[in-house]
């Protein structure tokens, strides 16, 4: 790599770190302020939850232990320092370091989100390809059904879909368990499907739109004129064009997955960040909520970096060398 290349890489790393820092600090601040303005005394989280009838000495002791007797701005600075040092402090309610708690909960959510994302992409691509390449009367009818299915899937509320899946596949057919068992892949099936189906519907529409566009582009015609089979045209040309817009919308997918994870984790009784967030918010366990949101925000930054890399891999036009020539 040339000197300018090294400089460019260093600049990129700095920029990314700067972005991460901004996002983390801003989200942590927003969450801290929101929770502290929300009403509900965090000290109750220490004393066994809201509605505590602990005596005044107990309350004072707890306040002192967790620094809740400091002025709010000092508490904020402490919180911010904790975030920036990735120490994150201790949970008020659970009395363990937030980082331990998050380390324990993150994998479950990550596995759920990633398997769902993978499944959603598989479904979306399969449906888009089937719907686009369908031939004949029957095929076109099937394609129409698939398109309608995509549309409906994209608007299914997670909680309802999950509930229906549980009733059908857990309590009626006994195919898959409704709840999570550590280390059991089968217990991942229903939550994954619940998360994946609406996302697949959304991605599928995007992919299909751009696939149809790419299939009618001149380069596809040219490829066919070279004797390329439909499979080859799809595999070597159009599919790559088709996934690009959906990949760019990964920020949206991220939000959808994380929001869905909150619902799915509660519904299926799975451990995970989403459920942790809900529970911690209810009891005003500020360090846990801040920590969880910061982790989510960092995950988002990581995701955008991955997406950028993916876009570069998929679309060489974005690479520096070509961009120079194209711009000139």
């Amino acid at each position, binding site marked *: 790599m040339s000197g300018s290349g090294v400089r460019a890489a260093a600049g990129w790393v700095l920029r990314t770190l700067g972005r991460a820092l901004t*996002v983390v600090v801003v989200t942590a601040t927003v969450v801290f302020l929101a929770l502290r303005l929300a009403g509900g005394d965090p000290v109750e989280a220490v004393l066994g939850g809201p509605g505590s009838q602990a005596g005044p000495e107990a309350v004072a002791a707890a306040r002192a232990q967790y620094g809740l007797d400091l002025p709010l701005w000092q508490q904020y600075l402490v919180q911010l320092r904790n975030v920036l040092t990735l120490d994150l402090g201790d949970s008020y309610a659970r009395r363990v370091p937030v980082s331990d708690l998050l380390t324990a909960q993150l994998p479950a959510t990550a596995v759920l989100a990633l398997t769902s994302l993978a499944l959603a992409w598989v479904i979306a691509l399969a449906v888009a390809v089937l719907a686009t390449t369908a031939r004949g009367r029957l095929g076109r009818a099937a394609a129409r059904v698939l398109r309608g299915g995509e549309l409906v899937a994209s608007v299914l509320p997670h909680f309802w879909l999950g509930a229906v899946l549980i009733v059908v596949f857990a309590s009626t057919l006994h195919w898959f368990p409704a709840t999570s068992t550590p280390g059991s892949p089968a217990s991942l099936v229903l939550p994954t499907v619940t998360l994946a189906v609406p996302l697949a519907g959304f991605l599928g529409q995007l992919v299909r739109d751009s696939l149809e566009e790419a299939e009618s582009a001149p380069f596809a015609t040219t490829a066919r004129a070279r004797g390329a089979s439909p499979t080859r045209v799809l595999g070597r040309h159009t599919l790559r064009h088709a996934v690009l817009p959906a990949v760019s919308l990964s920020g949206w997918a991220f*939000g959808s997955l*994380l*929001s869905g994870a909150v619902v799915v984790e509660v519904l299926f009784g799975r451990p995970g960040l989403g459920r942790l967030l809900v529970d911690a918010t209810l009891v005003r366990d500020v360090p846990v909520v801040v920590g969880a949101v910061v982790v989510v925000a960092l995950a988002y930054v990581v995701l955008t970096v991955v997406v950028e890399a993916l876009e570069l891999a998929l679309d060489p036009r974005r690479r520096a060398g070509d961009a120079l020539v194209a711009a000139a």
Partner: protein
Amino acid sequence: MRRALRGFTPGAWVALAVVVVMLVMVVAPGLIAPGDPTAIAPREAFEPPSLAHPFGTDESGRDVWTRVVHGAVSSLGVGLQATVIGVALAMVLGFAAGLGPRWLDAGIARVVEVLYALPTMVLALLLVTVRGPGLAASVLAVGLATAPGYARILRSRVRGVATSGYVAAARLDGLAPARVLTRHIAPNALWPLVAVLTLGIGQAVVWVAGLSFLGLGALPPSPEWGAMLNAGRVYLTTAWWLTVGPGLAITVTAAALTALGRAFGRVGVA
């Protein structure tokens, strides 16, 4: 608009018809379902669908059909409000980023990123803890959560329009910048949002419904669809029909709005 309709596929026409029916439900629900959506009859609870009760009755003996019809106002209302909030915020961000100097564009990119990094559910949870119960927090959360997406679309549209041939032509025709903005940039940048908006309302309806699962939805006894769907969900094994009405209402409405939005997008100025 007339030109837009000419480009409609049969599917888009069906979607348009559904939306029109929904609008009737909003404007004059009594025409379709004359009953009182909150009138209880505990002794007639959990009745399966029949001619008298097309969607059955719920746990309090209320007619689910009547509630679904009367719920259109609040359900579509929240979708619309959330989308309006999202679009309003997006317009500020999008135009500022699209027309402003580089540092402003970069700053707004950060704001958008932060909004993206806070998933809808998390935003909603936080807002509900701050603002208290009711739909207002959900609406605001969904509005905020959808804003970054709109803002990004708008920013690139504004950029695109601002560098377009007709804006350049207008400048060379001697048109003042403010007039260029109001006459050319704003209408052309906002036009594609009609499609996105339509689509967004449908999505917002679904989001708000999703929030009711966490108890962040409409206040009882409002027949908001998401709240109904969540209330009916717990009886899925014993009274499945409770979710059919609101479930259909949500999916059909959102699907129709999505289809319509996509149709607008296709025939509109692409």
